[in-house]
C-alpha cells in the first residue's frame, strides 16, 4: 500500500520545571492511503503529542522538536516553509477531529458562521496558493454559495436532521453526539487525504459512540480518506481500525493489522495491556509498577522496568523494529509468540 504519511525517528521534548521531558523518543509511524490506523496507549504515552506534531500545532512555548522527519505526500512537514504547510496541508490535506465536542465550538456564534469561517480559508474550491492572507479578504460570493451547498450536503451525510435549519442554531442547542457529527462534517469538508481524530468518542455514551464510529468508518471508507485515530480504548480500536500501533511512554512498541494485533500480540506490553481489560469472568490483571517519568525515562526499551522478560540488553539498547509475518512489526528483544493471553 502506498504510504501517505511516514513519520521517522521523531523526537519531541517538552520543557518542564524539572527539565526537558522526552515525550516522543524516535517514533516511527506509517499511514497508508485509505487506511484507518489506530494509535493506542495509556494517558501520557505521547499519542496526542504525536498527532499534534504531525499537524504542526504543538505548543510553541514548551515543545521542541529534536529531530526526525514527517513525510506527507512528498513534503517533509518539519522542513517545509510553514506558509506552504498552512496553505496546502494543515486544515486542507490533513484535518482534525478533536476529543471534546463541548469546547471545540465557540458558544457565541451559530454553527453556520463557524463552519463558513473555516471554509473561507480551507474550502477545496479556494485556490489561495501564495496569496497574502488578510482577515480583510472578502469571501467571493459565488464560492460562498457553492461552499454553503457543500456544507448542507455534509451535514446531511453525517445525518443531522434538517441541515439548513440546524446551521442557524448555536452550539449549545446540539447534543454531544450531534456536535461530534458536526466536527466530522467539518473535517470532511476540505476534502482531506488524512483525518487525525484525537479520541473523538471518549466523551460520548456507548450507544452514541457506536453510532459515531459506524458513521465515521462508513464515510471515510466511501471517500477513501485515511484516518489516524488515537484512543485509549482497545475495544474502540478493534472496532474501527485496519491497523493498530501501540505506544508506551513515548516509544512505539508494536504495529500490526488489527486482527494480528489482538490475536497474536508479540510485545510483552501489548499482551499485558490486553490482559488488563476486564474479562467476562471478572478476572482483573493489572500491570505492576507505574508509568515512568519522561524527564528521566529508563534507558533502552522504556517498558523494561515493568517487563517480565527484561534482560540487560533491554536496559541498554532500544530494540530495532523486527518484522513478523504479515506486516506485523514489534520493537522488542524478546518478542512473545502464540495467541493472546
Amino acid at each position, binding site marked *: 500500500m502506498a504510504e501517505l504519511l511516514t513519520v521517522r525517528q521523531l523526537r519531541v521534548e517538552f520543557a518542564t520545571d524539572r527539565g526537558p521531558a522526552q515525550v516522543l523518543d524516535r517514533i516511527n509511524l506509517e499511514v497508508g492511503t485509505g487506511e484507518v490506523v489506530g494509535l493506542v496507549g495509556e494517558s501520557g504515552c505521547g499519542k496526542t503529542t504525536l498527532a499534534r506534531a504531525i499537524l504542526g500545532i504543538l505548543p510553541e512555548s514548551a515543545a521542541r522538536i529534536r529531530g526526525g522527519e514527517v513525510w506527507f505526500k512528498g513534503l517533509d512537514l518539519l522542513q517545509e516553509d510553514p506558509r506552504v504547510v498552512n496553505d496546502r496541508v494543515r486544515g486542507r490535506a490533513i484535518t482534525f477531529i478533536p476529543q471534546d465536542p463541548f469546547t471545540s465550538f465557540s458558544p457565541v456564534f451559530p454553527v453556520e458562521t463557524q463552519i463558513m469561517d473555516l471554509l473561507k480559508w480551507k474550502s477545496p474550491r479556494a485556490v489561495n496558493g501564495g496569496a497574502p492572507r488578510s482577515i480583510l479578504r472578502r469571501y467571493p460570493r459565488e464560492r460562498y454559495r457553492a461552499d454553503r451547498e457543500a456544507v448542507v450536503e455534509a451535514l446531511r451525510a453525517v445525518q443531522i436532521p434538517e441541515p439548513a435549519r440546524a446551521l442557524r442554531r448555536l452550539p449549545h442547542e446540539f447534543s454531544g453526539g450531534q456536535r461530534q457529527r458536526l466536527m466530522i462534517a467539518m473535517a470532511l469538508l476540505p476534502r482531506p487525504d488524512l483525518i487525525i481524530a484525537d479520541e473523538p468518542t471518549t466523551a460520548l455514551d456507548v450507544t452514541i459512540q457506536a453510532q459515531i464510529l459506524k458513521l465515521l468508518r462508513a464515510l471515510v471508507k466511501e471517500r477513501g480518506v485515511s484516518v489516524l485515530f488515537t484512543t485509549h480504548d482497545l475495544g474502540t480500536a478493534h472496532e474501527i481500525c485496519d491497523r493498530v500501533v501501540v505506544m508506551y511512554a513515548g516509544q512505539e512498541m508494536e504495529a500490526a493489522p488489527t486482527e494480528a494485533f489482538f490475536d497474536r500480540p508479540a510485545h510483552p506490553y501489548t499482551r*499485558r495491556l490486553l490482559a488488563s481489560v476486564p474479562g467476562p469472568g471478572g478476572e482483573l490483571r493489572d500491570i505492576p509498577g507505574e508509568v515512568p517519568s519522561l524527564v528521566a525515562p529508563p534507558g533502552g526499551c522504556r517498558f523494561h522496568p515493568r517487563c517480565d522478560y527484561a534482560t540487560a540488553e533491554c536496559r541498554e539498547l532500544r530494540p530495532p523494529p523486527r518484522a513478523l509475518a504479515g506486516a506485523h512489526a514489534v520493537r522488542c528483544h524478546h518478542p512473545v509468540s502464540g495467541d493472546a493471553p
Partner: protein
Amino acid sequence: MSAPLLELIDLTRHFPVRNAFGRRVGWLRAVDGVSLRVEPGEALGLVGESGCGKSTLGKTVMGIYTPTAGEIRFAGREIGRLPRRARRAVAKDLQYVYQDPGASLDPRWKVGPLLHEPLKIHTALTRGEREREVRAILAAVGLPDAHVDLYPHELSGGQQRRVGLARILTLRPRLVILDEPTSGLDVSVQASVLKLFRNLHATFALTYVFISHDLSVVRAMCARIAVMYLGKIVELGPTTEVFEKPRHPYTQSLLAAVPRIGGRRVTQEFALEGEPPNPRDVPSGCRFRTRCPLVQPRCAVEEPPLRILDGRTVACHYA
C-alpha cells in the same frame, strides 16, 4: 430474605426548570419512581448513559439532594427527611466515593491529619486509638506508614486516590456509593483500582452501590445490576443473566453498543437510532419507545410496570 441494608421505595427526585425570570416552567424528572433493595454485603451495579439519573439517585441516597417523594430506608430506618443533626449521624455509615477521591484532598493538609479528621468528627477515640486506626487503614489501601507526613502533591495520582479511599474507610462505613470511580482511568490502572475495591469489599465487609457507565467494569465487580433509562429502572437482575440474556430492548442495545475485542464489529451490527430524549420532556407511556425497535401502539399509552421474568425484573410489555 434478610433485611435489606438499603431500600428505596418509589424514590423520586425532580428538579424545577426555571425560565429567565425565575418562574418554574417545568420539571426535570431525574429520578422518577425507583424502588430498589440492596442486601448487606452485596455489590449492586447501577448503569445507564449520561443523564439517566444514576448519579442523582446516588446523591439523593447520600442526602446531598432531598427526595421529592418516596422513601429511603437505611438499615430499616427512614433517612430521606431526617433533620440535619440526625442525618449527620447517618453519614458515618454511608459514604460516597467521587470520580477521583484524590482530588478532594485539601492540598495544605498532610495525609496524617487528613485521615484523623473524620475520626475526630464522628468518633470519641483518643489520639492514640485514632493513630492506630489510621495506620491500619493505610496498610489496607496499600500505602506505607511513612506517607502520613507527606502532602497530597508529593504522592502520585494513584496514591492520592488511595488516600481518598482511606479517608472514606476510616469511619468503617456500612454502605459505600461509588460514583464512576474508574472513569478516565487507563485499563491497566483501572484493573489495579478495581482490585483494590474488591479487596476492601471483602476486608471491611462493605456493601457497594457501584454507579458506572462502563458495563465491563460493572460486570467484573457486581453480582447484581440495575439498568436505568431516563430516571427509571428498566431491568434489574443477576449480572451474569442480564449480560448473557438481556430482556429489555434498551439493555440489549446498550450491551450491543460496547465495542468488544475479538467480537463482531458493532459498526456493522448496531442499529439503535437517535439519542435519549430530554428528561424535561419524558415521552408518555414507556420512556424508551421513541428509540425502541419493538415499539407498539400500546407502549405510548401504558407505562410498563416492572415484572418478574427469567429471574429478574423487566419494565417492558414485550420483553
